[in-house]
């Protein structure tokens, strides 16, 4: 069902945890199925220097969280905002169709984290 790469990100997820002094935090949830993701970022000079996540959800949701934190790190905020559901799924070598819309919350959580950061650093 899942690609080897996805299984790797599920079994050995990268960047699990909280950043207590995060510069931005985004939370996204799918109310009908309950998948919920919290994404924390540290930002320096408009670049994401660190990202961590906490996720409640299926294997795909966890792998998506792991992958997007990896993808976000090192990117400028503008670059990071260009990450889409599809690009995360591609990086995971694909997602089963029914998981595409339910568990693929990473891009939304990341966007919210960036918005959170920007709202706090408007003139930053």
């Amino acid at each position, binding site marked *: 069902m899942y690609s080897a790469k996805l*299984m790797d990100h*599920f*079994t050995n*997820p990268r960047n*699990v945890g909280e950043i207590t002094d995060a510069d931005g935090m985004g*939370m996204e*949830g*799918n*109310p*009908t*199925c*309950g*998948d*919920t*993701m*919290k994404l924390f970022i540290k930002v320096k000079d408009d670049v994401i220097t660190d990202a961590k*996540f*906490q*996720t*409640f*959800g*299926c*294997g*795909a*949701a*966890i792998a998506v969280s792991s992958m997007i934190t990896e993808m976000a790190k090192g990117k400028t905020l503008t670059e990071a905002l260009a990450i889409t559901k599809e690009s995360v799924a591609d990086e995971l070598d694909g997602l089963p169709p*029914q*998981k595409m819309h*339910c*568990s693929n919350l990473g891009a939304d959580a990341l966007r919210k984290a960036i918005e959170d950061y920007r709202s706090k650093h408007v003139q930053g």
Partner: protein
Amino acid sequence: MRVKYFDHIASNPLLPEVLEAMMPYFKEQYGNPMSMYDLGMNAKGAIDTAREQVAKLINAKPSEIIFTSSGAESNNFALKGMALARQDNGKHLIISKAEHHSVMNTARSLEKQGFVVTYVPVDEYGMVDPETVKKSITKETTVISIIHASSEVGTIEPIKEIAAIAMEHKICFHTDAVATAGNIPVDVKDLGVDALSMSAHQFYGPKGAAAMYLKTGQRILPLIYGGIQEGGRRAGTENVPAIAGMGKAAELADAELPKRMAHVRQLRDRLTEGILKIEKVHATGHPEHRLPGLASFVVEYIEGEGMLLLLLAKGIYAASGSACTSKALKASPVLISMGVPVSMAHGSIVFSLGIGNTQEDIDLCVEEFPQIVNRLRAMSPFAKEGWGAMPAEGDSKEGA
């Protein structure tokens, strides 16, 4: 890695003796059971023998057994066949909220044909109250169907009491015994039911063979019309090998039932004890009136699929009633109807044990499972703060 298969409720492995009983009908005895020559009569003989074996398992007469292709077909046949045969007497049916899809969705299809269906609730243990059934009866009620035991939480329903109420009101009573027949004693006379569904792959028989018990004299309309197979009640060339296998599986189940039940019960109790040591884990279903081989839980703050995947990495095969793990992407309607919050239903995990499982298998599971739970909880945003941070719950029509 040794397979630790704890998902017998999904399907059972086939016993070698059962496969052996099937083989002649894949090889030399290929005749159509309707044919009058030896090849046909031997095939017919195999069906007759199987009919006796299945009848004996549930204390029925052979003539009361109708072979079908699946538990779902038996349920469709029973519900539609009995309701339509009686529609001049009334168009009201009663089922419970804990029914299998194949009863639930058949009832819904009858609603579209003008029938009215009452869905009686279950309590927090998944138990139907016979009094509630009684109160739901109207002059129009012709058929009541209540599941014998839920395959999701294992609760065994008070079928005998409900059947007595149905009989008192001259209402036809059916029970879906797919999860029980061959696994616990099922005696149609003692239960007092008019019809009952069972399926071979739930007691180490083959997929593709199932049966409906229909009490002598009960009217039914066929689901499959055609030739005179099964006494004209179910047409189609008989699946002779699978039926022969079902017969053998019934014979073995009948002979070994107490031994098998003791085996799985002991393992289940050991597993349950081990798993309930983990905090924020709750057993679901009735603590006593339950399938001996079934242990079901909800684990707070984490989701079923993650548990299943990490268990699999250890060679442990289990199931979950969470939305994400169901191919229909719906959380177990049984858990929801028992009042389990959707958030907690996501953490459903179900172990259904079988005769091939060993104490070592269980001990391994009890050892590994807490680590799996911890590992997933370490990633969960709820584990520290509780469910407070949960987004608003939907109706779980779709899932992850």
